[in-house]
């Protein structure tokens, strides 16, 4: 099992509906079927960290002006 984050649509897991941004556990082989709707949690966190760094850099630039 590996951790993924939903990026498009929703998933029904154990009778509960999960939506965009929710984490989901799935076999990588199974997750491959939904590659356009899921992203691995590691990748998601790296993207999030990258985005935060970009925002911080932009903020710094705005302050330095």
């Amino acid at each position, binding site marked *: 099992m590996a951790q993924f984050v939903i990026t*498009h649509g*929703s*998933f029904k*897991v*154990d*009778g509960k509906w999960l939506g965009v941004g929710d984490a989901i556990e799935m076999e990588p082989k199974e997750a491959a*079927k939904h590659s356009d*709707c899921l992203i691995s949690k590691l990748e998601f966190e790296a993207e999030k960290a990258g985005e935060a760094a970009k925002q911080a850099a932009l903020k710094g630039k705005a302050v330095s002006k």
Partner: protein
Amino acid sequence: MPYDRSAFVTRTPQEDIAFDFMVDASAYVADKLFAPKPVDKADKKFYQVDLSKLKLVNIDKGTMAEPDTVDEQLFASNVSLKEKKLGGWVNPRDERDADIKSLLGDARKIKQITNQILIGREYQAAALVTNTANYPTALTSAIASGSRWNEAGGDPEADIITAQEAVRNYIGGGVTPCNAIVMDIACFRKLQTSPNLRTRTMYTKAGPVPQELVQAYLGVDHLFISTGRYSAKLEGIAESLGGFYGADNVVLFKYNPSVALEDVSFGVMALMDSPFWVTVTPDPKRMGPAGPARFVQVGSEWALAPGMVESSSSTKFAAGYLLRTVVA
């Protein structure tokens, strides 16, 4: 009957053969998902009303007060027909010598070519409707292991109700905005073994859960089962026969076979009002004892597009819902 015979015309007996074959080809369901709409030119606009018509406005105004205005915003989606055609040879000597001549003549060739065109159309239609990227995020979902419809924890009726509610937020349409479902025969066969559906018939029906009961449980007026098969075989690769819509996808959609351009349906198939052209050309360079070889060409023009989109800036289907991995 998706093809209104009073709206689509044929001009020759050969076009009749192609048209009638298309109408009878019940293995394909593209004409259910994409309602055939006759058009008279290659570029056409399809209009849609946006949600401004649902705006709550102040209606309490006296005689001397000016009324609030009602703005019904229309927007258009451009649809451009694309040309499609295929050809094939008829050998007059083979036809002369055949024990069953009808298998080798022009009519048979026209049907065979039309079938290949329909396979191409079905493939293109399925590629559009089974692609999650073509749906708003609220109109597609996947069922994970344990909740699938042929598993003990599966609940197809509840999942369809959830999907109906999601579509209603986009297109309105009363209690059940979507009145039809498309699924591949492989998916249907698995759904027949759903424990949830079996328990409903175990004391009253012999044999597998029948199609009309599956349709009734899912709460739709039409259950279209795609039985068409195609081979994705390329040169040098082993035969690979399969269905068009995937063995575990279900498309819940608004079926409306009306030919009127303003009527809402999940998808539209803009089709020239004379849907086929057919030519049979003798080739003087290929003569034989039974005359010249004949080249048969069948062609059509169409475009597949959403019948209703999410918004004026979107090309995503709004009058339907894609459920994936519904069966194990």
